[in-house]
């Protein structure tokens, strides 16, 4: 558990002079960092069955060493390392390393727990233990970087000083155009930001998305200049305010940083928290999130892109790790022997005490310590870890060979093969592309699958004994081979559709988009707004229908029906006019709804008239002003225009509405004389029955007038 030491700031000679001015402002608070030495996923399975990801060698040093070196060089003085999977191994490694020496400017506290399942858990624990006192740096144990974040840190502090802790996080991005080697396809993001304040307004992963969508509200923040950036690589380094830990506690459903970012951006208006970004042009910062990234990061390392972190600098300060640097980026450790006629083409790093036979051809590769390589071996983009034995006449392309593996004579490893720990392959076999061989039987996994949240690294010990001695398949791994083939590509997991567990990450297929592009219409409707699904009026109509139906079934009084319709009217924000029309059309439709569309006019009338009588009070409640009558009649007309076959019924319905005093004769006459605008409605008015009815009405009116006089 963490020893709470090192609170007082250390003598300033202890660290690099980079931090400068930012220090005093910080009231002598040492800069803290939270390093999460677990990936909480199984991307590197089965390799990480034997070694946690943070300890996997990259350029012959453990990945966590790069992360710690980065933290120390930016001026971090106190680091909390959170481990879960194989915590003991990480702890042992760290205790041995230079970071735990008393001279280290960076105090390391190792905190382990089996219970961490996600970044969220770690940060909630940070909050519970109140470990951080001020802004801190959040990184993963597999981040490789040489970015100088002191400038970003200053900006972050400045922002927090200026407006009262609104900014909770500054994400660090590295500029790199789409298609750059070090871009991780899975991590492809599009960020919308405010150009002036560098505030992140929208953050979206683009994987598998064809059209990027930016909600309008992000453009309402008062700025008049925005940027949409797709040329950024997320370095997975973030400067966080102490609130971040609290926010994780408050929102117990946040698991990853992406959850957090999404949550903050969506709730910006409510919580008032903002996220900013810092873009570096020349630094290097990536997270090794799959083997493809491992490949590109390793080659960048050998090509000295992370200067001052270089292979020969021996930044881990271990004894006997020094190596020499010669042209074409060839590095050789001490005690390396090279056979006659072997070629070191370029970009090669060879560890200590490794011997290479004659007539080999090696390029773009990293070879660990104490390896033996036979004659006539071809290595290209091969990552050979420690104590590996490779016999003669072997060819390896873009593959990873883990510790203590043996590759026998005449073996060919095609692209993207992985030989996990202690595997033996060969002789004379060629492994197809993407083969993964491990000493662990793939079935072992099933036992663990019970808990799908398990991180990379749970229970190791027991599984070994459980394995019944299964027989190695010589057809797969060769006559003398030892190891089981893991299914290439995703494991058995249908349930984990998220980034299939493929070690190598996504296949970089040529962007399918460019072909499909033309399938999209590029006409003016490109920007058209899609029609809204089911507008309120529709819903209201359904509801009214339901209400009436229920009223009929349960014999609800008309007053209550009116009440219900009124409340619906407010709920869906419907105007009185629309209520009128919808009510009329619903009632007129009702017989069809109940009995199907094939009613004869006489059946229809027979069904409708009792209903009208029953619901007359409802109508009367709404039909009051002259305009209401006309609206009602308009809806009536509309209904019968659609149901031409029922015109014979029309007069009867109108008649009964007149008799029930829903409609007044004056209004009916007005409608009849004025309303005709289209051919169809003119035709409707020519209907004989209707004309007769109107005629009758006119006469009645005249006679009533006469009576009146």
């Amino acid at each position: 558990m963490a020893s709470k030491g090192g609170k007082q700031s250390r003598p300033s000679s202890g660290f690099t002079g980079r931090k400068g001015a930012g220090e005093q402002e910080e009231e002598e608070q040492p800069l803290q960092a939270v390093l999460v030495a677990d990936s909480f996923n199984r991307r590197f399975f089965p390799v990480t069955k034997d070694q946690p990801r943070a300890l996997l060698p990259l350029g012959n040093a453990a990945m966590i060493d790069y992360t710690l070196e980065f933290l120390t060089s930016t001026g971090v003085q106190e680091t909390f390392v959170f481990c879960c999977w194989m915590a003991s191994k990480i702890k042992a490694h760290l205790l041995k390393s230079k970071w735990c020496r008393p001279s280290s400017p960076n105090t390391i506290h190792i905190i382990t727990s089996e219970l961490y399942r996600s970044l969220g858990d770690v940060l909630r624990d940070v909050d519970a233990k109140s470990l951080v006192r001020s802004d801190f740096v959040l990184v993963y144990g597999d981040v490789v970087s040489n970015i100088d974040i002191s400038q970003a840190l200053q900006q972050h502090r400045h922002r927090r000083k200026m407006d009262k802790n609104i900014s909770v996080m500054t994400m660090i991005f590295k500029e790199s155009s789409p298609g750059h080697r070090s871009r991780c396809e899975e991590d492809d993001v599009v960020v919308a930001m405010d150009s002036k304040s560098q505030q992140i307004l929208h953050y979206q992963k683009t994987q598998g998305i064809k059209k990027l969508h930016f909600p309008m509200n992000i453009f309402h923040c008062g700025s008049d200049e925005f940027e949409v950036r797709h040329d950024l690589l997320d370095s997975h380094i973030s400067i966080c305010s102490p609130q971040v830990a609290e926010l994780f506690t408050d929102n117990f459903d946040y698991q990853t940083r992406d959850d957090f970012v999404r949550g903050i951006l969506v709730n910006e208006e409510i919580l008032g928290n903002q996220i900013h970004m810092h873009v570096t042009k020349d630094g290097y910062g990536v997270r090794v999130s799959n083997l493809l990234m491992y490949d590109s990061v390793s080659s960048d390392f050998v090509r000295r892109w992370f200067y001052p972190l270089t292979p020969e600098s021996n930044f881990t300060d271990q004894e006997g790790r020094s190596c020499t640097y010669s042209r074409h980026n060839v590095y050789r450790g001490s005690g390396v022997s090279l056979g006659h006629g072997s070629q070191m083409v370029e970009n090669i790093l060879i560890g200590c005490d490794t011997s290479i036979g004659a007539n080999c051809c090696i390029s773009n590769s990293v070879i660990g310590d104490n390896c033996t390589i036979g004659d006539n071996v071809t290595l290209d983009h091969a990552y050979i870890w420690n104590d590996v034995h490779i016999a003669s006449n072997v060819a390896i392309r873009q593959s990873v060979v883990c510790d203590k593996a043996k590759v026998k004579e005449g073996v060919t490893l095609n692209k993207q093969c992985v030989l996990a720990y202690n595997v033996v392959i060969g002789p004379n076999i060629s492994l197809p592309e993407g083969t993964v061989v491990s000493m662990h039987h793939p079935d072992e996994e099933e036992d663990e699958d019970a808990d799908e949240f398990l991180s990379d690294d749970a229970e190791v010990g027991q599984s070994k004994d459980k394995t019944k001695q299964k027989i190695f398949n010589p057809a797969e791994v060769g006559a003398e081979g030892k190891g089981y083939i893991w299914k290439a590509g995703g494991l058995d997991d249908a349930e984990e559709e998220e980034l299939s567990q493929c070690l190598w990450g996504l296949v970089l297929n040529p962007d399918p988009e460019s072909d499909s592009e033309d399938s999209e219409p590029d006409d003016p409707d490109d920007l058209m707004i899609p029609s809204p699904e089911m507008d309120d009026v529709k819903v209201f109509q359904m509801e009214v229908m339901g209400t009436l139906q229920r009223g009929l079934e349960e014999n609800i009084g008309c007053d209550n029906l009116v009440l219900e319709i009124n409340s619906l009217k407010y709920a869906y924000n419907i105007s009185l006019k629309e209520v009128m029309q919808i009510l009329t059309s619903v009632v007129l439709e009702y017989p069809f709804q109940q009995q199907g569309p094939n009613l004869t006019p006489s059946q229809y009338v027979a069904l409708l008239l009792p209903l009208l009588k029953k619901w007359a009070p409802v109508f009367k409640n709404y039909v009051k002003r002259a305009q209401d009558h006309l609206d009602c009649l308009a809806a009536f007309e509309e209904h019968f225009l659609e149901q031409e076959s029922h015109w014979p019924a029309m007069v009867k319905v109108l008649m009964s509405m007149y008799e029930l005093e829903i409609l007044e004769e004056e209004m009916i006459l007005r409608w009849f004389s004025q309303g005709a605008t289209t051919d169809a409605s003119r035709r409707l008015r020519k209907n004989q029955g209707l004309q007769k009815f109107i005629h009758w009405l006119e006469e009645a009116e005249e006679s009533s007038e006469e009576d009146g006089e």
Partner: protein
Amino acid sequence: MELQAVLMAAGGGSRMTDLTYNTPKPMLPVGNKPLMWYPLNLLERVGFEEVIVITTKEVQKMMSTDSKMKRDIKMKMEVVCVPEDGDMGTADALRHIQQKIKTDILVVSCDLITDVALHEVVDLFRAHNATLAMLMSKAHEFTETVPGQKGKKRTAEQRDFVGVDQSGKRLLFMANEADLEDGLSVRKSIIRKHPRMHIKTGLVDAHLYCLKKAVVDFLTENKSISSIRGELVPYLVRKQFSKTTNSQKVKEDLEDQTQKKNDCSTNHELLISSRDEPLLQLAQERSCWNDHRGDMSEAYHGGKLRCYVHIMEQGLCYRVNTLAAYIEANRQAPKLFEEPPVHPSAVISERCQVGSDSIIGERCQIAEKTSIKRSTIGISSNVKEKVKVTNSIVMHSVTIEEGCNIQGSVICSNAIIGRGADLKYCLVGNGQRIEPEGKTQQHEHTQS
């Protein structure tokens, strides 16, 4: 001749009807010059020798009588009249004069007052062999109180969203806020090609366009487009990223029966723009120049249709299409020409104050004890004794009787302001007469 200039001067000025009631917009006096003098002068300054002016009969008549136009404009003007009543859009007007157009064109609106270095726009057009190059400027806040407008002016105006690439020159998309209720969506392929897109709001379109001749030909076949700004430009901007030639063929076959075919086939012509295309193509292939960084694809990602925009960061750029802009333009316009603010033929008595920021037109008579500050007095106006004119625009042949106090107002031609009238932030219509001792306070209109 590389570019033919076209001046669009047939607009009615529908957003400032108070002013254009009697004077058509192109002839409104700004700094005692007709509005259309400014774009003409802009063209002349950069060496155009000919211009096609599209306008109405009425304006043509006024032009022929206006002395300023005759004297100052030395360019050869070819006036084409369009019917006044028909609502002819700018694109319709271009279609109207298609016969006269032999080369690429530069279209200017008559209400543009700017000191832009015009070559900036044209250079973009040339350098990128663009289909469209246009001018935009940072929008100005009009701070002055506007006569006849109560309270704060419209803040709820819809913003235009303009997307440009990293260099700030390539126009990637354009949309109005009103069309973006559902949010802004951008195809990923565009983002991939232009990974860093600046989205700007608060820009005004100066309505100055360089267009390829092919676009005019395209217009003649595409009768549905009637306005340059409203339809043609958005169409061109969008077309930049649609699939080109080969897929077009397929599409054409599919949509044979629809009228879209028409659209597509003309689009072909739109792409094959200039006669020395093969040579340019070759030059582009052989050159190591590229318009973008990051990926290895060819310049412009193979796109043939390109739209560019020059955004003025500073300098003068007004579109005189509202009253507020008109007032502001009057204030700023004198900076654009180097004439003495007081015309030599004006008669100004010795005992009056005329600020150096005021303009006095020809044959004006300014009597004693008057004070004129930050104002424009039009031709043949008569200002009597003890008059105070501040912050106002007085058009031609206006008579201001003794003792008037006029502040922040616009007084149209031929008006007579009675003795001792007090006008504050008023707009006095053409030929109106203000009663003596009349007191007209803020925001009142006088209009026939």
